[in-house]
C-alpha cells in the first residue's frame, strides 16, 4: 500500500482532527498531498472552516436563536448570591 494515498473519507477525518489537535508528520504529509490533488476535499476543508467561523461569530445561531450571553442583570443576581455565602 502506498503510504501517501489517502481516501477522501480519511482526509476529511484528518481535516477535522487538525482543528482539534496536532497531526503527526505522516498525517500532515498525507493530507497535504491529498488536498493538492483532490479539489473536492479542498472544498470540504474550506466549508468546514467556514462553518466553524460562522458559529464562532454568531454562536446564538447554534442555540435556536437564543441569546447566549447571560444578561448583566442575571450575572449580578448570581454574583450577589455567591458573595453572600462567600462572606459567611
Amino acid at each position, binding site marked *: 500500500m502506498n503510504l501517501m494515498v489517502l*481516501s*477522501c*473519507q*480519511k482526509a*476529511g*477525518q484528518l*481535516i*477535522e*482532527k487538525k*482543528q*482539534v*489537535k496536532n497531526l503527526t508528520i505522516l498525517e500532515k504529509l498525507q493530507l497535504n498531498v491529498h488536498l493538492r490533488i483532490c479539489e*473536492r*476535499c479542498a*472544498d*470540504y476543508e*474550506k*466549508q*468546514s*472552516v*467556514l*462553518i*466553524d*467561523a*460562522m*458559529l*464562532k*461569530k*454568531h*454562536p446564538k*445561531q*447554534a*442555540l*435556536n*436563536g*437564543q*441569546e*447566549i*450571553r*447571560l444578561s448583566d442583570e*442575571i*450575572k449580578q*443576581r*448570581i*454574583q450577589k*448570591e*455567591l*458573595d453572600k*455565602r*462567600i462572606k459567611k
Partner: protein
Amino acid sequence: MLSKTYNLHPEDWVNKYGEKLYTYALLKSKNKEQAEDWVQETFLAGLGAKDSFRGDSSELTWLYSILKNKIAQFYRKASTKQEVPLNGLFADQENDLSLFFNEEGTWKEHSSPRDWQLDPAMALENKELGQILNHCLDNLKPGQKEIIVLKLMEGLGSKFICKDLGISDTNYWIQIHRAKLQLRACIEKKWLTKQGKYE
C-alpha cells in the same frame, strides 16, 4: 503529609465561567430562565462543595460536572419532561457514511462538495447563509448538533464532551466529521438552490 491547597476562586466564577456554563445549559433546555437557574445553582453548589475539589481537573471542568449532575437530577425528578437525549446516537452511522463515500472512501459524485462561490469574509456577514446554517443545525440528528457546538466552546476538552455524548474519545474528530458531512450537505443544497445553481 502535606495538605495541598487547591486554587478555587469562587469570587471570579460568574465572570470567568458564567457564559460557558450558560451555553451548555441552553443545549439542555430551551427555556432561558431554566438555564439561568441551573447556572446559579451550580455556582452555589460548587461553593458548598469547595473542599471536595481535588485539583485533578480544571476549575471549569469541575463546575461543568456539577452542572451536568444538576441537569440530570432535574430530568429525573420531572419525569414528565424529557431530557434532550444524547446517548446512543451514533449507532447507525455506517449508513450515513455510505451516503457520501463509496467503498474505497472516495466521494460519491452526487454528494461531493461543490464550490459555494463565496468569499469567506463576505460569507461571515451573509444573513441568508446564517439562516441556512441555523436551519440545517436544527435538522441534524440529536447529538450531532451538540458535538459541533460543544467543540467550539473553549476549555471543555474532548474527554468531557465525548463522555457527555457517550462516544469514545479516541475518535472524537471522526464523530465531528460525520456531523459536519451532514451539515455541509444541507447548507450546500439550500445555498446553491437559493442561487439557482443546484441541479
